[in-house]
């Protein structure tokens, strides 16, 4: 058994015992010895994503930028992590790339599902921005009303000055 296979087997065993933190440590170590070891990076990415360690996952994938671009599975993992952190526009780029890639059908279907969800989220953000615009319009209206009231007081005073203190000219 190669060190890579050994690491993968050990990681699987640890994960089965719910010791996912230790499983990740084993995979990280294997990756340090052989950064191009197949299966190790995807497995580690999966575990980090499943455990909600998006920040660590993004940092890891940042170190393996080329591998991510070439591997639709890693790209999908990155998209999911970005999505979880609310970075929908960046996530969308990954989902579109996975969907357009030659990845197996289930992977592309999953990317499509995430893409649909991301588009809904982005539409909701656009709606929120529209609401912000309405809020500003409403605030501008309020300021105009206040200015109008002060202006009316000034006009009354001006008219009174022309007419005299009793308003009789």
């Amino acid at each position: 058994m190669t060190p890579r296979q050994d690491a993968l087997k050990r990681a699987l065993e640890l994960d089965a015992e719910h010791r996912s933190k230790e499983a990740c440590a084993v995979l990280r170590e294997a990756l340090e010895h052989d950064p191009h070891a197949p299966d190790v990076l995807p497995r580690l990415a999966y575990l980090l994503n499943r455990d909600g360690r998006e920040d660590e996952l993004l940092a890891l994938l940042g170190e393996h930028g080329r591998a991510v671009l070439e591997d639709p599975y890693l790209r999908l993992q990155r998209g999911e992590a970005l999505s979880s952190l609310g970075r929908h526009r960046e996530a969308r780029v990954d989902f579109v790339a996975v969907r357009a890639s030659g990845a197996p059908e289930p992977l592309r279907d999953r990317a499509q599902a995430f893409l649909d969800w991301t588009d809904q989220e982005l539409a909701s953000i656009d709606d929120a921005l529209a609401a912000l615009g309405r809020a500003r319009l409403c605030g501008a209206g309020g300021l105009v009303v206040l200015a109008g009231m002060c202006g009316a007081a000034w006009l009354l005073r001006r008219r009174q000055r022309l007419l005299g203190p009793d308003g009789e000219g």
Partner: protein
Amino acid sequence: MAPAEASRARGFPLPATGLLAFAGGFATMVVELAAVRVLAPSFGDSIPVWTNVIGVILLSLALGAYAGGFLADRGLAERTLPLLLGLSGGLVLAIPALAPRLAHWVLPEAFPLDRAYPVLVEASLSVTLLAFAPPVLMLGALSPMLIRLGSADILRVGRTAGLVYATGTIGALLGTFLTTYWLVPGLGLPGTYRLAGLVLIGSAVLVLLIHRRADRGPVVGLVLVAAGGWLFGSADEPAPVWLDEGAHERVLARVDSRYQRLWVVEGEEVGEDGRRRRVRSLRINEGLDSFHSVKLEGTPYTGGRYYDSFALLPFLCEPGDGEVRVLSLGCAAGSILRVVHAGLGARCHGVGVELDPGVLALAEEWFRPFGEPPPATTRYLGDLGARVYVQSVGRDEPPFDLICLDTYRSQFYIPAHLATREFFRALRGRLKPGGVLAINVGDFSPRGPVLSAVAGTMAAEFPTVESFRVGKQRNFLVLGHDRAPGEVARVLRGRERPAGLSRDLWDAAQRSGAYWTWEALPDDRCLTDDHNDLLRLHEVLYSRLGRG
């Protein structure tokens, strides 16, 4: 002699001057204090909303005082005073319907918290400017006018000004206390504004009587303004935008308590077991996608919502038959205590502390009959702040095995005084050796700014602090205890999942990778009573995420 000339010659009677200033001060404070209550169902009552309301009211009063001075000095006060009082009264009558409609126009749908925050802050400012500022500006003009009218000659100016300020301030004082403690809880928001509006219209009538105006025009005008404001203000409030028709949600109860707008909502959902269940939730103020208590029909658990993460706590207690004392701070309608009690059974001796007694009343009426009876060993204490209980009222109570802190205010933030090093120290002092403090903290990433600040501060007082993300939600369970790191996951392994508890949550809770261990922040970065920027951290968090 013209009426205006006559009244100037006589001077405005001082008692009437004082009475009118009193009415103006009273109405101003009723409008201001109830303004947040009117806005709360749409925008919440967070500190930014309060700041916006107070700022706009002060701006309006300042502009009104300046404009009122203009009018007073040119002899216009006699003619414009009843007009201002009547118009402001009519506008005040219209507020309970006008403000919610404006809010509904600005925010016609419910956004998730991360999208809503910037909108809520700006929209509350805008709606306050349009709905509340105009009548308050008119009320601000009263003081200079009354001082001018009440001063028959220059020798009376000081006395009149003193009277106007004194009675105006007493009126404001009365308006402040009555609004919070009697008017809103007793009359509701429309009733409160009706009272303030009628006081102003009555004041306008008084001015007309003092001037002995015989012509019908002003009286008819006042009647029309009052009727228009009353009719418009009596319109029904729009339904809350967050009501989910897809889940067949309907409002069972709506109450304006002393603190906030409370809603009890019932809907349906399909659980992990495929069963369709009725679900009741307690929503507060703007609601959005948040809830403050949840009860599912036929189970103490809440369908994988963050309350279920508190079901892990009984596994950390000593096995056996001994009593387990549980304190739930911010217990609302008892979701956490129900979940913990499900794991402990009769051993559970719970104390629920809730600030708003209105919440406990709704819990009694709508949540307890909806399922199993409450454990006899659980006490609920209302009208009590969490910190007051821990450091004062409950100080002599025996220590607790578990303390659960879930005290979110206005959906967005933990009040600053409940996330400080001093408070965490006090909480640790109320725990038995081996006891656990569990806090619900909202953030969007496992190393997010709010979570880092709270957990890092806790770690300055607890030997071990771990956080656990509840699914992919924005809730983290933060645990402070004196055991070894990683023990929570270890304790859960090999144990049987409680029937009805979410399988996903249970599986995740057993994995060591699902927990983050926290180191103490340096002293100068800990949240303390004196230096606490938790609100700013929340603002940074929500403002950043809204851009996608």
